[in-house]
């Protein structure tokens, strides 16, 4: 998996790696989706656009994960997949846009795993290495 869940006593760490920042951000979101609900039980019937911004790649990662959590409640949908459609630096801001694919919540069919309250700055890491990007933060459960 291009993402990994890390042990944390109260919560959980989510680390994503990608050849590019774009890939790492995308896989971080996919990792979050897989943590919440078994993606196999969710049909990609509808599309929801999300956007996020941050002062740097780390805060952008946190903001993007939080945008996904907000989309679930606002649209009352679960998502199966995510596609990152834009990643840009405008002045001092990093901006990301993307599309979530899913369907309205149906608790009879969707295999819910756990609820995540928020992505936090706890253990926040955003580093570019020779092999690509590594993003990490603690999710508040």
């Amino acid at each position, binding site marked *: 998996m291009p993402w990994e869940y890390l042990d944390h006593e109260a919560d959980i760490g989510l680390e994503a790696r990608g050849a590019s920042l774009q890939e790492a951000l995308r896989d971080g979101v996919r990792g979050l989706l897989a943590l919440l609900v078994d993606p196999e039980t969710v049909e990609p019937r509808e599309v929801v656009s999300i956007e996020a911004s941050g002062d740097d790649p780390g805060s952008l990662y946190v903001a993007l994960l939080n945008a996904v959590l907000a989309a679930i409640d606002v649209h009352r949908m679960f998502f199966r997949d995510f596609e990152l459609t834009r990643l840009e630096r405008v002045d001092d801001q990093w901006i990301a846009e993307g599309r979530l694919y899913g369907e309205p919540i149906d608790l009879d069919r969707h295999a819910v795993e756990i609820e995540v309250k928020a992505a936090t*700055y706890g253990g926040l890491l955003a580093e570019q290495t020779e092999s690509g990007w590594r993003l990490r933060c603690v999710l508040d459960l």
Partner: protein
Amino acid sequence: MSKALNIKKIHDYLFEVPPHGRMRVPARLYLDERSLRELVENRSSEEWNAIRQLENVACLPGIVKAAMAMADVHPGYGFPIGGVAAFDPKEGGVISVAGVGFDINCGVRCLRTHLTRRDIAGKEEKLADTLFEVVPAGLGSTGELKLSPKEIDRVLREGARYAVRLGYGREEDLEYIEEHGCLSDADPSVVSHTAKQRQMAQVGTLGSGNHYVEVQVVDQIYNARAAQAFGLEVGQIVIMLHTGSRALGHQIGTDYLPFLEKATKKYGIEVPDRELVCAPIESPEGQQYFRAVMAGANCAFANRQVLTHLVREAFWKALRVPDTAIETLYEVAHNTVKWEVHEVDGERRRLLVHRKGSTRAFGPGRPEIPERYRAVGQPVLVGGTMGTASYILVGTEQGMRETFGTALHGAGRAKSRRQAKRQYPADRIIEQLRKQGIIVRAHGKASISEEAPGAYKDVEHVVEVMCNAGIVARVARLRPIVCLKG
């Protein structure tokens, strides 16, 4: 190990890391040798460890006396869980997202009933099924209350009072909630539209993870005078419910994290961990976050009030128990920030107290305590772990002097959720609990494994440490009978 960390023993139940580096005050931990050893050995990484987090809190501007952790301490993000820290605005004191947490005003309400163990004998399964049916829980669940944007603003301004006004519960419930269920500094205008939108369908939902409704029996009384004041006796049925501000509170934290990060830079505050971003209490940014947190807190008060009503409804449906037979004993909050007056070195000071996974535990005589309990002290509710006991304790004078009137909030995690998930298959846990006479219903299997009793510290030991330290005193022990998990 403790030598390498330079931990000094103050007495058998209190240890201290003296200020070093950028620490402004000491870091104090209410532990005994055994729990200190466990905490030190459990440090999973340099940054995800509770002692380091407490040292970091001790570096924040305007912190008074010490950064403290109760016996249920474990790593959080920024502040450790089980932590308390008070800040003086006159000394540049700050307000921090990590000191409150994302589940703003998460807390526990205890309901006292007129029932005894005998009254529900043989009806436990029916009660469990009815609670499961009546109380919405788990990710994606919705409450029966569908609110308009205007009504959400009233929830944020009026808290539990608004829920009572809508017919959820009774006026007398309010007397026994911290702040009577309504914080006056709440300002819905500084809460984002997204936060309100997320909450429209969630008022009156339990949530998941460690949130629960538990039916319990009082199996031991330790302090007859306090038990009498709290209306408790052996064999009596009580109900504890644990939940918070749900998505609205989570979104306030999410919105204000980057907001306070900008403030941290603007005011030139150096923080040892990025999660500790904060703003001076009296700055416009600090004030704005405070007013937003108060609104989030009111949402949690309203949520627990609606759930109280649902619990009463379930008891009526399952057992024909009238709602007047179920009274609010008390409600305490875990993730809060509050203005309080405390005496520090003989001087009365108005301080902003952050409690992250810890409980206010005021001693006798404080005006904040309901009149009925004032002579004995504030009830302190310590949640158990499905299979183990819960406790009702009471705050003490010593706690007022030492910990700003703060005590533990639960058993405290001992194993990570992933470890617990690997080690405790849900079906096995449910079966084991059934053999102990505890009926469990859960919306997600993951929450059974992750919340398995073995994933937590020994609640008996944690309570013993805090009582031996003199911060709280035992009043009653409660044994679980029926547990509804998110």
